[in-house]
C-alpha cells in the first residue's frame, strides 16, 4: 500500500502509517473469509485490468468491532508490467445493518402471514396485491390475482341482510382510502359455483412517514359455520316461538320450589303462552315471575302441585285430567325439561267431552230404540209363529174331515149315488188334498224364513246327487239324465240348499215330463268374476214375458192339468238364495228348455 488516507484508523484501529509500513496490517484487519474474496477480486482485476468492487469486514484492532467497507479500485498497468490500483474505501456499516434488519422484518412478516389460517391480503395504492397468504385463493379455487380488479368478475359480496356491496365498498378499497374497518361481515358468492361463505373483515390503511396511505391490509375470518348455525338456531327459535304463540294448547314452564324438608311446596311461573291466558283467564304479566300460591292463594283443591312435584323429582312425564276453577275440563301432559323445572301442556277437552257425552247419550237412546224394535220384531215373529202353528194344525184338521166324510159318503152310500155325484165327491177330495199341499208348502216357506241358518262349507255336488237320486226313485217310469258337475262347493246351510235344489231339480223333472229323454244339468260358470250356479233342462221352458212372476208365491205359468203344483217352489228357492246373500234369475224360451241361475254371496 503506497498511500492510504487517515480515515482508515477509524475503521480498523490501524493508523495510515502502520498500514503503509506493514502489509500484514491489511490482512490482519480483515476477516479471513473477506480477505480471500478480496484477493480473488484483485487477481481478477489484475488479469482483466478491470475495476473491482468488494464489500469486506474489518475487525477493529482494539475494540473488536466489525465494520463493513466498500472497496472500489481501478487497476493501471505500470511500465515495468506491474499493476497498480487506486481506489476508495467507504464505511457502509450503517447501510448493511439496515439491510439486515429489513430482511429480518420481511422474514418475520412472511412467517406471520404464513401462520395465519385465515386469508390476509395487502394491497398497494395501484390495486396490486403485493402480499397475501394465499388461503383465500386456495380455499376458493381462484387463481391468485395480481390486482384487486381481477376479483371483481369472480366474486359478489352482500351485506348480511342481502344488499349487494359493490367493489368500491369492499374492505380493501375502503381501507386504501384511509378508512379503518374493525368489524364488517359480508356474504360472498362465487361465480365459479363455490359454496357461499360469510367473512368477518378487519381492514386498515398503512401510512408512510409523511402520513400518506401506501397500502391497505385486510384480514378476513370465515364465520360461515357460525352464521349458518346462528341462522338455523334463529329459524328454529322462530318456529318454536310461532308454535308456542299459536298452539291451541296451554303451555307453562315452572320452576319447582321446595321446602326445608325437600318437598315440593310451590312453583314459580317462568313462561306461559297466549292460550294459557285464554284458558286460565290470566294475563302473562300477572303470572310470570310469580309463584303458584301468589297467583291462586288458598285454592289447592286440585292435585296439581302433587303431580308437578312428582314429575320434577322423578323426571318422568305424566298425563292428567282435571277441572279448572273456570269449570273447564282440562287434560294434559307434564314433563321435566331440565332438573328442577317442569312444563305442562294443557288442552281444553270440554267440547270433546261434551261431544262424547252427547254421542254416549245418543248411543244409549239408540240402544233403547233398538231394544224396543227388537222386542217388537220378536213379538211379531212370535205372532207369525203362532199363526203358522195354528195354520198347520187348525186348517188341516177340517180338510181331513172334508176328505174323510166325502169318502165315507162314497163308501157308505154307494147305492144311492150316481156316477156324477161320485165324481163330484172325488173333486171335493182332490181339492181338499190340494189345499193340504198348499198349506204344507206355505208352512215350509215360512219355516225357511224363520229357521236358524248355518254358514258352513257345503258340497253342492253331493247335495244335487242325493236330490237326483230321490227324483230318480220317484220317477222310475221316466228316462232322466242328470249331468251334475263335480266339485261344486259353496258356503251356507246344507239343509236349505237341499230344499232349494229339490225344488229346482224337481221343477226341471216336472217340466221335462213331455220329453222322451229328459236332460238336466247342474253346473257353474264364471260371470264377471262371480261364481254362478245353474240348473238347465230341455223341458217346455216358459215365456220370458212372465219371468218377473216366476218367483212370487202362488204364481204359476202353466196349466194345473198339465203341470200340477202349488206355485210355492220357486218362491222358496228365492228365499233360500236371498238368505244366502245371493241372487236368482231364469232364462228360457218356450219349448226350448229353461235355465235357472243363482249365486251364493258367502262362497
Amino acid at each position: 500500500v503506497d498511500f492510504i488516507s487517515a480515515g482508515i484508523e477509524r475503521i480498523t484501529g490501524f493508523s495510515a502509517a502502520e498500514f503503509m509500513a506493514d502489509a500484514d496490517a491489511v490482512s490482519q484487519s480483515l476477516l479471513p473469509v473477506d480477505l480471500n474474496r478480496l484477493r480473488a477480486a484483485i487477481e481478477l482485476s489484475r488479469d482483466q485490468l478491470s475495476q473491482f468492487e468488494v464489500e469486506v469486514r474489518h475487525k477493529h484492532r482494539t475494540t473488536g468491532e466489525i465494520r463493513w467497507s466498500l472497496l472500489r479500485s481501478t487497476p493501471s498497468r505500470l511500465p515495468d508490467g506491474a499493476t497498480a490500483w487506486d481506489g476508495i474505501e467507504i464505511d457502509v456499516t450503517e447501510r448493511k445493518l439496515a439491510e439486515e434488519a429489513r430482511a429480518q422484518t420481511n422474514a418475520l412478516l412472511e412467517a406471520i402471514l404464513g401462520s395465519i389460517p385465515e386469508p390476509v391480503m395487502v394491497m398497494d395504492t395501484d390495486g396490486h396485491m403485493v402480499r397475501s397468504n394465499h388461503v383465500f385463493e386456495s380455499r376458493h379455487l381462484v387463481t391468485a390475482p395480481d390486482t384487486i380488479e381481477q376479483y371483481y368478475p369472480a366474486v359478489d359480496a352482500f351485506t348480511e341482510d342481502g344488499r349487494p356491496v359493490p367493489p368500491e365498498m369492499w374492505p380493501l378499497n375502503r381501507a386504501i382510502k384511509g378508512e379503518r374497518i374493525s368489524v364488517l361481515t359480508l356474504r360472498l358468492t362465487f361465480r365459479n359455483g363455490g359454496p357461499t361463505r360469510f367473512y368477518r373483515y378487519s381492514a386498515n390503511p398503512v401510512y408512510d412517514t409523511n402520513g400518506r396511505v401506501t397500502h391497505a391490509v385486510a384480514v378476513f375470518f370465515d364465520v360461515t359455520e357460525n352464521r349458518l348455525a346462528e341462522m338455523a338456531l334463529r329459524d328454529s327459535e322462530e318456529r318454536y316461538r310461532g308454535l308456542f304463540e299459536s298452539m291451541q294448547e296451554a303451555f307453562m314452564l315452572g320452576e319447582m320450589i321446595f321446602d326445608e324438608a325437600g318437598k315440593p311446596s310451590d312453583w314459580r311461573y317462568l313462561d306461559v303462552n297466549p292460550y294459557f291466558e285464554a284458558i286460565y283467564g290470566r294475563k302473562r304479566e300477572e303470572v310470570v315471575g310469580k309463584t303458584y300460591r301468589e297467583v291462586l292463594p288458598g285454592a289447592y283443591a286440585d292435585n296439581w302441585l302433587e303431580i308437578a312435584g312428582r314429575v320434577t323429582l322423578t323426571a318422568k312425564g305424566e298425563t292428567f285430567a282435571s277441572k279448572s276453577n273456570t269449570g273447564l275440563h282440562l287434560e294434559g301432559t307434564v314433563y321435566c325439561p331440565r332438573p328442577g323445572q317442569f312444563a305442562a301442556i294443557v288442552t281444553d277437552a270440554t267440547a270433546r267431552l261434551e261431544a262424547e257425552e252427547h254421542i254416549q247419550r245418543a248411543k244409549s237412546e239408540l240402544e233403547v230404540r233398538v231394544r224396543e224394535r227388537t222386542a217388537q220384531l220378536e213379538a211379531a215373529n212370535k205372532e207369525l209363529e203362532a199363526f203358522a202353528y195354528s195354520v198347520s194344525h187348525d186348517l188341516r184338521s177340517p180338510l181331513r174331515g172334508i176328505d174323510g166324510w166325502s169318502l165315507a159318503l162314497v163308501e157308505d152310500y154307494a147305492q144311492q149315488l150316481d156316477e156324477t155325484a161320485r165324481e163330484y165327491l172325488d173333486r171335493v177330495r182332490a181339492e181338499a188334498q190340494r189345499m193340504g199341499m198348499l198349506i204344507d208348502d206355505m208352512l215350509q216357506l215360512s219355516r225357511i224364513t224363520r229357521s236358524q241358518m248355518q254358514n258352513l262349507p257345503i258340497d253342492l255336488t253331493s247335495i244335487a246327487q242325493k236330490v237326483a237320486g230321490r227324483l230318480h226313485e220317484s220317477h222310475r217310469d221316466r228316462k232322466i239324465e242328470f249331468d251334475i258337475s263335480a266339485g261344486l262347493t259353496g258356503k251356507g246351510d246344507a239343509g236349505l240348499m237341499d230344499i232349494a235344489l229339490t225344488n229346482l231339480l224337481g221343477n226341471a223333472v216336472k217340466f221335462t215330463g213331455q220329453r222322451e229323454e229328459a236332460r238336466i244339468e247342474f253346473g257353474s260358470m264364471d260371470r264377471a268374476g262371480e261364481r254362478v250356479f245353474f240348473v238347465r233342462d230341455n223341458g217346455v221352458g216358459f215365456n220370458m214375458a212372465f219371468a218377473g212372476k216366476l218367483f212370487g208365491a202362488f204364481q204359476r205359468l202353466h196349466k194345473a192339468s198339465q203341470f200340477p203344483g202349488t206355485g210355492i217352489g220357486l218362491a222358496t228357492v228365492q228365499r233360500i238364495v236371498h238368505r244366502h246373500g245371493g241372487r236368482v234369475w231364469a232364462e228360457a224360451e218356450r219349448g226350448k228348455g229353461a235355465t235357472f241361475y243363482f249365486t251364493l254371496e258367502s262362497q
Partner: protein
Amino acid sequence: MKIDSKVILLVEDNPSDVALTQRALAKSRIANDMIVAEDGEEALDYLWGTGAHSGRDAADLPAVVLLDLKLPGISGLDVLQKIREDVRTRRIPVVILTTSKEEQDIATGYDLGVNSYVRKPVDFNQFAAAVEQLGLYWLVLNEAPPAPKISR
C-alpha cells in the same frame, strides 16, 4: 179281531177326528174298545182313576194312548209330561197323533219320552192306513210294559 181286552185311549177334542179315527179302526177291523178323552184332564183322570173316573182300576192301563197335541186346557205335551212323571203311567206307550209337524213339537215330544210321533195325513185313505198300522203295531206286535206295583 180283538186283541186281549186292552183298550185304546184316544185324547182328541175334535168330534170329527174322533169319528174318523173310529171309522179307520173299524175299517182295519181292530175291535178293541176305544176310550175317548176330550181333553187332557179327562185323559189323566181316566189313567189315574181320579175325578170323573174315580173308582176305575188305575192298574188296568190302555194298550196305547193316541194323543193329540192341540187340546183345550192342558196341552197335549203337558199331558205327556204328567203321564211320564207319574210312576203309575210312566211306562205306558204314548203315540202323538197330530196335524202339526213343527220341529219344536216333535223334538219336545221325544224329549218328554213319547214312543212315536205320527202326523195325520189329509187324505183319509192314508190316515186310515196310518191308524191301522198303529193299531197293529201297538196292540199286536208290541210287548206291553208290566203293570207297575204300587204300594199305597
